[in-house]
């Protein structure tokens, strides 16, 4: 296996995540897209870890996974909060402040 195939896969997932973050209006879906991006990072880390034979990459990935969980938790709470207030999970309705 060559390293680059993992890296490119990760890049593709990352960029799909980017697309999702940009193009999805539903808050939950945006969060899912973010997870795609973070997952890409993990693939990178593990691939490099294998390539370099260096454990710290995997440790890093573990931390990323954990913190991603925390982020999602908070993120969903925020989406839920917004939903409570405006009865919609759509992000583009939130433009009260600008300028």
């Amino acid at each position: 296996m060559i390293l680059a195939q993992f890296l490119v896969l990760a890049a593709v997932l990352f960029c799909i995540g980017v697309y999702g973050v940009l193009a999805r209006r539903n808050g939950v879906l945006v969060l899912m897209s973010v997870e795609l991006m973070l997952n890409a990072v993990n693939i990178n880390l593990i691939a490099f870890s294998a390539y370099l034979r260096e454990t710290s990459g995997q440790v890093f990935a573990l931390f990323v996974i954990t913190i991603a969980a925390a982020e999602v938790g908070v993120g969903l709470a925020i989406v839920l909060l917004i939903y409570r207030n405006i009865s919609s999970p759509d992000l583009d309705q939130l433009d009260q402040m600008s300028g």
Partner: protein
Amino acid sequence: MMNFAWLIPAIPVVSFALILFFGKKMPRQGSEIGIAAIASSFVLSCIVTVQWIQRVDETVSEHGLGIVRAIGKGLLANSEEGVAITPVINTVEWFRIGTLEVAVGTQIDGLAVMMLFVVTLISLLVHIYSTSYMHGDVRYTYFYAALSLFTASMLTLVVAPNTLQLLVGWELVGLCSFMLIGHWWEEKANTNAALKAFLTTRTGDIGLMIGVIVTFFAAGQTFDIVQINVLALEGHGGHTIWMVGASCLLVGIIGKSGQFPLHTWLPDAMAGPTPVSALIHAATMVVAGVYLGARMYGVFWQGFSIADGGVNPMALVGGITILIGAALAFVQDDIKKVLAYSTISQLGYMVMGLGIGAWVGAVFHLFTHAFFKALLFLGAGSIAYSGTHHSFDMKKDMGGLRKHMPVTFWTFIIGSFALAGIFPLAGFWSKDEILATAGQGGYEIFMVVGLVGAFLTAGYMTRCVWLSFFGEYRGHAHPHESPKPIIVPLIVLAVFSVLAGLANASAFGIEKFKEYIEPHGEAFPEVLTPQFDVGLAALSFAIVVIAIGVGGFFWVDRRELRALKGLTDRSGTAKAGHSFLMNKYYLDHLYERGIVGGIKGPIARAAYWLNQNVIDGVVNAAGRGSAALGRLTYRFVDQDVVDKAVNSIAQETGNVGGLLRYVQSGRVQRYALMLFGAVGVLALSLVIFS
């Protein structure tokens, strides 16, 4: 006493302060302080004068030249064993800049004592005169304060041992002139005149200022007048720089002494009280320019190569001024204006005199002119005070005053004769001295100018005297003789007008003026001492007499005939008489269009027109023009360009701030889009550009 000469200007300074602060509380509102102070200064001046004469005598006799002196003829200056009679200079350090020490003090020499005498004497007389003339004036006290300040300033100028002190005095007399011209400042015309006087002279002062600077550096960084003169005569540093210096100083003279083309302020300055006109604008301040010329004669001598003859700027300016001043005097109806133009013309004599090397003549003329011109002005004031109810219009409000005001009349006649140059009055001798020098020093053309000037002078004075004192009274007041404070100064001045000329009556071999006043030494050039020329004297005398005759004939006859004509009209027209009258009228026309008319009519009018519209116009337009230029500069440069540039920068930054707000749309995913876009672009460009 000469070491304490500083007291002479100091006393009027004290007097000024006293009058300013306590004048109003004094029984005579401060005038007594002024008179007392000036009187003391006068006495001190006399003492100094006497001491100076003694000093000259002693110096000369010490060198055993007493006998030679008796013969006179300037042997002292030319003598191999020439004795330098050094001026008495007393100075204290004034201030120090860099390595330069500037002193302040007094320089007493012939020229200074002469000026001290003249200034204090005339000032004293004017003080006395004014107690009556200005009686009851709204600003009587202030008037005396200003007179004191003026006298102090003028004396400071006169005794100045260096150009800086001279400059100080020079400007201060200008200030006093301004204050006194604008004495009745409620009237716009008066304040305009005051402004004009100040600004015009100050324009000339640019020249003086630069001249002082140039001579300062030309003489190796010194303001010391003696040293400047010495180095100038040596031609230290080359001729050119002295020429520049002299030219600049000449501009100063032109401004202060009312020379062409900056003379226009002087007639306007007549808006001030008449005693002021007599003191400042006839006898003393306006001659400051001439005094400067005489004081820094070495500079002019070197700068204009006066010894070479021909034409030089100084003589030229003086010559032109003689003619235009005299011509303009013909068409004035205001007696003070006549005298003002006359003053201009006479100052022209002095400047021309300096320009042609007639130092003694010029200074002597300054001396004599001070008396008779002051006399004439005070006479005019006397007329206005007692004869015309404060009018100076000869045609409307005067005529026939000789019967009502005999003392005024006779003194005025003496003054006029002295001015015209009737032998043996003062003006004759001084004018003759200048003309003789011109003739003998290679300046023949200026001699002719001088003679023409003499002719014109006599002419306009005849007209002036005639219109004022002869014929019928045309005014609406009750003319009577003036009170004593006015009369006495007139008489004193008349006496001086008669006798002053004898101080240097070269025809009689009296050359006191040359002996005591002319400096001797390395600071002074070897000026030509003219031989008394009987022919020239006779010629000039003749010209004067003819002028008086012609003028007198014209005006006298005209008046008489007009009276006659009225008579015939009343008696019902006699034919024979009529043709005679007609003839007379032809003659009148002839005169009018010929000799007198030629002067009075086209030439004088043209000159006047030129004066009012071109020269004065230029002066006024310079004022208006700079105001207009100021407005333009302000509106278009300052407010539009400079200021707007600044403001528009501020505005533009504000607009950009608004533009940038579009980016901040408020939608989070738009933000994210821009964020990722920026990341992509930045990443790519970083890779490409590194």
